[in-house]
């Protein structure tokens, strides 16, 4: 059957994150104070055909590590979700 999977990709600790830094710098001017440690990442939502949850997650994790992220600079996690509400 089909499983709805969400893959989160984030920059590894220690890797520069200019996007997050730029947003953080822009915030005060836009009236947002007290916001720190801003980090930008990517996410992917997809349906995976698999016999059961475990193998769906296994497939998703492989996809996340081999394709959706670049392990040299990024970490990735895959989790099962539901179309709405996640």
């Amino acid at each position, binding site marked *: 059957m089909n499983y709805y999977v969400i893959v989160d990709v984030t920059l590894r600790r*220690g*890797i*520069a994150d*200019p*996007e997050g830094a*730029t947003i953080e710098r822009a915030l005060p001017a836009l009236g947002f104070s007290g916001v720190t440690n801003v980090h930008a990442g990517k996410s992917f939502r997809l349906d995976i055909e698999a016999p059961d949850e475990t193998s769906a997650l296994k497939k998703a994790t492989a996809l996340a590590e081999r*394709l*959706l992220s*670049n392990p*040299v*600079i990024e970490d990735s996690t895959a989790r099962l979700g539901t179309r709405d509400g996640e």
Partner: protein
Amino acid sequence: MTRIGVVVFPGSNCEYDVLAGVSQLGATAELVWHSQTDFNGFDGIILPGGFAHGDYLRPGALARFSPVMDAVARFAADGGPVLGICNGFQILTEAGLLPGALQKNRGLTFLCQPTTLTVTSTDSVLTHHAALGQELVIPINHFSGAYTCDDETLRSLEEHRQIVLRYLDNPNGSRDDIAAIANIAGNVVGLMPHPERAMSNLLGSADGRILLEGFVASNVLVA
């Protein structure tokens, strides 16, 4: 006569420029479609700039799976000269043929501008005709050109003199001002600047010639 293969992925766009540049140097160059699984009798392979597969996901992330990339890996393993320019460099890192990764520019904008490079190693198929410390004016044209790697990788790059070109005035936040690196053997090189865009003074600079001349002549070197 030297034969250079220029690999074309859907979304590549500098293939004709590279063709023109290489032909000016007396070599013959042919386009190689990404679905091809082996090359016959090429003396060197160039992965040109552009946006292979639209750069979707990450620059080079989808292109690295193209059938042609196995052939490129074999060619490189046999010591064949391989050059990745801009998007080609990004593909080579994604494919693991070169260490590290290329991230978005520090300023988070695309940059098309001339840069001044210094030759920091001549132990590569790209730089062996140039002189150590020589300065070259060559344009960059990229959004994701900030070279990134961990400390250990950087140490080994320096140890094996794999950092072959550095920016004089770092435009994109590249670690250690890195503009081009080679593998340990020196036959696989990736650079973000575009030497094929610096082949004549009519277009602003001819400093790219010495690099591409070296590459075209390099099969002799590695053979």
